[in-house]
């Protein structure tokens, strides 16, 4: 059920990116889709009653850095977290690129309306 709500959030972003005429609204729809995908990946690695993948003092079993079996069996998945961390930072860079394109288009045409941006010349 949380997966379905997450997918509903993605569909809202898709609707916004496809149907709206305003360029900033399209950027907002793409952002909503990014949040939904990140949330879905983190949810896949979650387990009920799990703990964060950070080794505390009580989780170390041996002197060589061995962790206890309790930590192995109750930690959430660290791999999606690492990859989503990368994706979030990249989304900031792409947001800056998209918004700069919007600002330049506004300066050239005087509107954010994509149906009025028709003069495609260099």
């Amino acid at each position, binding site marked *: 059920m949380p997966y379905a709500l997450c997918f509903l959030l993605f569909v809202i972003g898709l609707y916004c990116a496809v149907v709206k005429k305003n360029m900033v609204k399209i950027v*907002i729809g793409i952002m909503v889709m990014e949040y939904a995908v990140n949330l879905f990946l983190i949810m896949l690695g979650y387990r009920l009653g799990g703990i964060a993948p950070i080794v505390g003092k009580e989780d170390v079993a041996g002197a060589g850095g061995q962790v206890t079996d309790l930590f*192995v069996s109750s930690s959430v998945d660290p791999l999606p977290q690492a990859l989503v961390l990368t994706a979030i930072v990249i989304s900031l860079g792409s947001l800056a690129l998209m918004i700069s*394109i919007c600002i330049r288009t506004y300066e050239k045409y005087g509107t*954010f309306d994509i149906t009025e941006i028709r003069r495609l010349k260099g």
Partner: protein
Amino acid sequence: MAIFYIYILLLFMIIAAIIAVETKYLLGAVICIGAVGFGASIMFLFLRAPDIAITQIVVEVLGLIILIRACISRELTFISGPREFFGVVVSVVIIFVIFLAGIRVLETLPDFGTAIFAEAPEAASQTYIAEGLQKTGAANIVASVILDFRAYDTLGEATVLFTAIIGATVIMRRKPKKLLEDE
């Protein structure tokens, strides 16, 4: 109890996203998208991902500043109405079909809260959890993954970020002709 908070936060994010999509005022839409992002960061805390929650807050603040820079002091921010009626109807029908198909696909996933990765003992995630501290010396397993096991991913991320910022700088550059005349 955690799953109750997760439902509440998901509903909050969906309502904020609907308001952001449907409101006329661009600045209001930007504020609502900020609400979605901060809701996502609290959600990451409940999903036991503190690193991502911190990163999400920082990125959200910077993204809000960038978006507000685009919408402030623009006179023509009221663009009402969707595109042509026929195109809108076709788009909505296609999106609805995608939604139904996606719901059917999601039914094949295991229930929320069961650890999928734990069912495969040789999975990479299990190795990272069991031997991350031993092999890298980092108590935070996420940090050991992004900086040690998968450091090339982080290098690629830095490359993509650098390229995107170079593109934004080139697009936002002022008076290129004057620069050319100076040379």
